[in-house]
């Protein structure tokens, strides 16, 4: 039984891998603390049970000890705080100085709209290149010719940064891909950017992580990282343009009855 992180214990994004490292670091610190504290507690309890004296030890405390056990935990906590600031800043604060990570407008893959109780996805027309965020904003504002639609299945880049915008059609939802260690709440009225780089190919579970009603548990989706996203979107577009007569270009015959929503 696999009790550890899903995805065979290894996240599929660099951010995820750093999160896992941080998790294990904290686990180490916490385990030491727990053993230490519980050890001390057990010891004092055991000694106390054996205490044959008439009275207990009349002590109101020790100033030195107070100082020690204030400074040491403070130091450990400060270390944890500083260590993880970096991870957060690089991966979630978009205007971070380090321009080697973080999204560019050209990384835009899709707009994902969460609604009760599914994920509605819209890709820009295959071949569209965005160079400014203003263009992205204009594209997000309304439907455009050539947009490709999908539901519950999202294709993203493999080994290349993916940028998606998350919207909500009705109430709050949250876009949670456990294998990628990505989570972002979808706020009605907002378009929120999420970016990540998937460096393991495969299909990853997508699920909702904010109570959105009775079907909160039904929102089962899938994120698939593919080498050639362009080609995959072209396939989807061909399926979407199927008129019942002309076989869609790159899709094998027989698959054409698969309607897109």
């Amino acid at each position: 039984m696999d009790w550890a992180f899903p995805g065979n214990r290894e996240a599929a994004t660099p951010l995820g891998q750093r999160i896992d490292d941080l998790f294990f670091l904290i686990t180490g610190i916490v385990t030491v603390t727990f053993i230490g504290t519980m050890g001390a507690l057990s010891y004092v309890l055991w000694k106390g049970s054996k205490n044959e004296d008439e009275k207990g030890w009349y002590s109101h405390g020790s100033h030195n000890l107070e100082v020690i056990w204030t400074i040491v935990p403070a130091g450990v906590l400060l270390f944890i705080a500083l260590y993880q600031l970096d991870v957060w800043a690089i991966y979630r604060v978009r205007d971070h100085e380090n321009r080697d990570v973080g999204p560019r407008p050209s990384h835009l893959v899709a707009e994902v709209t969460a609604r009760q109780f599914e994920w509605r996805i819209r890709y820009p027309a295959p071949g569209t290149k965005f160079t400014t965020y203003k263009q992205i904003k204009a594209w997000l504002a309304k439907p455009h010719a050539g947009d490709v639609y999908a539901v519950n299945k999202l294709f993203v880049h493999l080994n290349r940064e993916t940028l998606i915008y998350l919207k909500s059609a009705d109430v709050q939802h949250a876009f949670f891909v456990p294998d990628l260690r990505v989570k972002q709440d979808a706020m009605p009225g907002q378009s929120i950017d999420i970016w990540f780089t998937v460096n393991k190919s495969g299909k990853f579970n997508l699920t909702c992580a904010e109570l959105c009603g009775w079907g909160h548990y039904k929102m089962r989706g899938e994120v698939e990282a593919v080498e050639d996203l362009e080609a995959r979107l072209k396939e989807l577009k061909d399926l979407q343009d199927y008129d019942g007569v002309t076989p869609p270009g790159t899709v094998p015959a027989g698959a054409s009855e698969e309607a897109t929503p």
Partner: protein
Amino acid sequence: MTTRHSILRLLALLPLVVGCADYQAEFVNDERVAALETTSSVAATNLTNSLNTHFGTPNALVAWGALPIEFGEISGTVLSATGNSLRVSLEGDPPTALNHVAVVLETKTPQNRMASSYDADTRILTLTEQEAAPAVTPGTPLRLIGHKLQAGRRLYMQHCMHCHGVTGDGNGPTARYIRNHRFNPLPRDYRRGLFKFTSTKNGFYASRDDLRRTVRQGLAGTYMPSFLLIDPDELDAIVEFVRFLAMRGEIERRLLTHLAPLMPTDDGDPPKDLQSLEKELAVDTFNEALADAASLVAENWTSADAPENLVIPTTARLPDDEKSRLKGRNLFISTKINCAKCHGEGGRGNGGFLKDIQKNPETQQNYPTPGLRDAWHKMIQPRNLTSGIYRGGRRPLDVFRRVTAGIKATPMAGFATVPETDRWHIVNYVLSIPIDGAFFDEHGHQYHGGDDSHADHDHPHDHEADKPADKPADKPADKPADKPADKPADKPETTQPKSAKDKK
């Protein structure tokens, strides 16, 4: 259509019981059965008994051979038998749980038994105890029937029941809360056998593919979510169970129609000649009516899956240019096809027909309030074509099918007699409405109605700041040559084409 004789034979064939150990739910009767009970309890009892006999209860389903349902059948042979434990060789892969699946032992007179478990490693099939059951001899062929129906029922109870109800009547606990807004579609009541979004011609039922598509893709804009990632076997099982519930409901309805003369009158009194009617309808001709109903239902469902009954265009989609769209627009507002009377001049679903009082097709009486209604007498609105939400699918083929065959059980009619080219023009126009607008100016350019600030532009242009992202291919920018003859010429300057909207 098989003869009555063979139908009656079918009735006797294969009523097998397929059970489940959990879930306490029961099928509910149609609302009219309670009324029938007050005048003729014999009729009501015969009705419910026959449903029970041929469909069973949720915990003990019956696999009735008259129905075109894949109950799930696995053939095999008995190799050796020790009491109730049979060592068998089965064709095909049985599922792991064969608990309460029906087993037919093809002895001289076929025996109906029930499986209690199956061990794939030892290939031991254990039957449940049955009194006075003869011993099973090696070499007896056997058939396991019903595992697919059973799986479908289990999956239905997990995923579907809370909206669609145990009986498939669209009245599950959640459905009672979905009624909030009057135009919110309720979960489908299967019992009429009608499904809205189909690929079949007018007058035909929904095919298995249609039901699969609905479950997998969901219905955009409604509470029917997409179960895209469901296992294909599970999907098939659910679809079979939905058909099972639909057929059960239909047979109940048809039997009620047959027994309609026995229902109380509007004053609540029993009908005259109750006794003789009762004898005639509820006793003498009842089984015949059941056979007729079954064969009709079977025929309907079988023909829906026949490839020749699908709507498939013969011509490819015409190129999606402004010319074609303009033609589509003209057809849209023409009196011949008159889409606008329901969908509105601007395609917003606010056409003039909504203000008229419609007639109830079953009773031929007027509905109390104006507006359109579906076959379940619920108010519905014509689709707002500007929204970009297409419940039946957004492919050109899907929209073509809507235009050709309409939407079953709704006032959306089919226009199969309109030439295919015209239908493609309409498809091109409809698909362009959310993106480019529903209206055309006198130069033939499309624009949005309402408060879109670009409505007053009559030439395409480029603003450097809002230069759109590079597109692979842009629309042709040339103006169309022909002008519409009977089109109300909305000046592009007006942002509110009120005159168009008010036109009836």
